[in-house]
Structures are given as C-alpha cells and as structure tokens.
C-alpha cells in the first residue's frame, strides 16, 4: 500500500503540533474517564452540573480541542477531581509523576519440573506503533507471556 504522503506528513509535523495532539487526546481521555466515574458516562448530568446546555458540553467532549484553562477549571470543579497536573519541583505541588505512558506490565512465570516456582520476571513496556517495520516479533513474544 502506497501511503507516501502519510509518512512524510508524520515525519514533517513539528514537534509542538505532535505534542498538542497528544496532550489534547490525554485530556479528552481523562475527561471521559471522569465522566464515566462521576456521572455514569452521561453528558446530560455533567451539563446540568455545569449549568450549560448538553450541546455546548458535547463540543468539549469530542475531538481534539483547544481547551482553555477556564474550561478545564470548570470541568475539574464539576468532576471534583483533577484533569491535568503540572510538572514542577515545588514542594506544595499536586503533581503526580507518571513515568510510563500507556504501558503494559507482563510477568513471565516459569514453573520448574516439580511444580516449583523457578523464575518470575516482570516486564514493563510502553505501547508503540510498529508502522509495520519495527521489531514486531519481539512484541508478539511479550504478549504471549502470561499476564500477572
């Protein structure tokens, strides 16, 4: 399949735009996680809590948006939980460090000849696109390992 333009656009996309897309999707995922947790996934309940129309709230909940601090603050108050955290070294910050994005933890357990636990090894790896050319074999190997 010839997707020359796709590959060149991805490689030429400025890093700040890539980061904008990634952050927007992170925020969107977090908002939907909280919508499910706090309002059983019902946009109407969130709209009522915010005193806004469902149509207006729906715009915030779908697609890559340019969220303002004001909107995020309103949503955080409505959910009663944080949507974003700021990376800072300050002692009084609420920042929680996340080192692995979308990571999976697989544990390989080998049982010895007499049923004894021979070896336990945990592997944490970040999900990555393969683009059909990277070492997909090693990823297959990991997914075949028994989950902890």
């Amino acid at each position, binding site marked *: *399949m010839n997707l020359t333009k*796709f590959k060149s656009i991805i490689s030429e*996309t400025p890093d700040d735009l890539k980061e904008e*897309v990634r952050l927007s999707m992170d925020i969107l995922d977090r908002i939907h996680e909280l919508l499910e947790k706090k309002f059983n996934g019902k946009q109407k309940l969130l709209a009522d809590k915010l005193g806004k129309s469902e149509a207006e709230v729906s715009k915030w909940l*779908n697609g890559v948006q340019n969220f303002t601090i004001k909107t995020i603050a309103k949503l955080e108050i409505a959910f009663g939980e944080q949507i974003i955290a700021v990376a800072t070294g300050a002692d009084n910050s609420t920042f929680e460090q996340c080192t692995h994005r979308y990571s999976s933890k697989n544990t390989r357990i080998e049982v010895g000849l007499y049923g004894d636990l021979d070896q336990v090894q945990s592997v944490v790896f970040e999900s990555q696109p393969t683009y*059909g050319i990277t070492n*997909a074999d090693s990823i297959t190997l990991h*997914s075949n390992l028994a989950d902890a």
Partner: protein
Amino acid sequence: MFVEFEKIHDLSTTKLCFYTIKVNKHALTEFEKFDAKDFLNHPEELAILYNIITEMGVRGAKPHYFKNESSAEALPIVSYSIMSQNKKDFGLRLYCKLLTDSIVVLLNGDIKTMQNPRSCPKVSSHFNLALKVGSALDKLIQNKELNLTSNNPLSECIIEL
C-alpha cells in the same frame, strides 16, 4: 459494487488494526485515494488528522475521537480555532468505521463545503459509501457473520453493496 477489505500494515500496531477497502478491485484502496489528494489550504488539519491516527495506534480507538455520522464515523474533530482558519468551508473529513477499540476501517474523504454532507459535491460520494459500508458491517455483526475477536477479522471479508 464489491467491497474487499485490506489491512493497512504500515499504520497498524499491537493495539489497533487499521483496515481500508478496495471497491470493485480498483488498483487503489479508498484510503490510498485519500492520501494521494492535495489539501493545500488545510495543512494543519491534515497533520492533526494523521497524528490522531498515529496516536490512536498507541492508545486504541475510542468513540470520543470520532464524529458520529449515523452508521459510520468521521475524523477529525478539531477546535473552532483551527476550523476558522478556513472560513470558506467546513474543513477536512475522512470517513471511517469504528468497529471496536482495536479495529478501525479508514475510507475516503475530502473538504466538506456544505453543512449537509449529502449536498456537498466533494464529500457526498465518500459519505454515502461510508454509510453503506458501515451498515453492511453492522448487519454482519448483528447476524454473527463477522467475528471481531478473531485474528485479522476482515481479511477474508467481501461485501456486495
């Protein structure tokens, strides 16, 4: 009209399998036709669209990344600040079908020039095809003729529209 499905190996990941379709054994798939187009006035939207697709490969396909279009979906949904860069149209549309969080069919699209996609000379044919493919797939799933949990579920799938 015969529709065959083809896996997009270049974009598929361990989390998400992207497919596209070939209509009546055309040399190019629908997504290749989309990729070959020039959207000279919408470079940022196209970059956002392609980066969303790439990022979905990392985190899986979630319904809130898509705009629902009856039996199909569309990408991207971008903020009004980006949309307003082109006041003459309604922005870029790539029609697709979200089957599960790990299976997405990418179709074709163009610049939407009218509010109603059925009236838009540029996207109406792509929109209509997406709806037809979408409902045909929905019917197959409903009739349990398509097992989405199997390995490479659409590889052997041919539908007549």
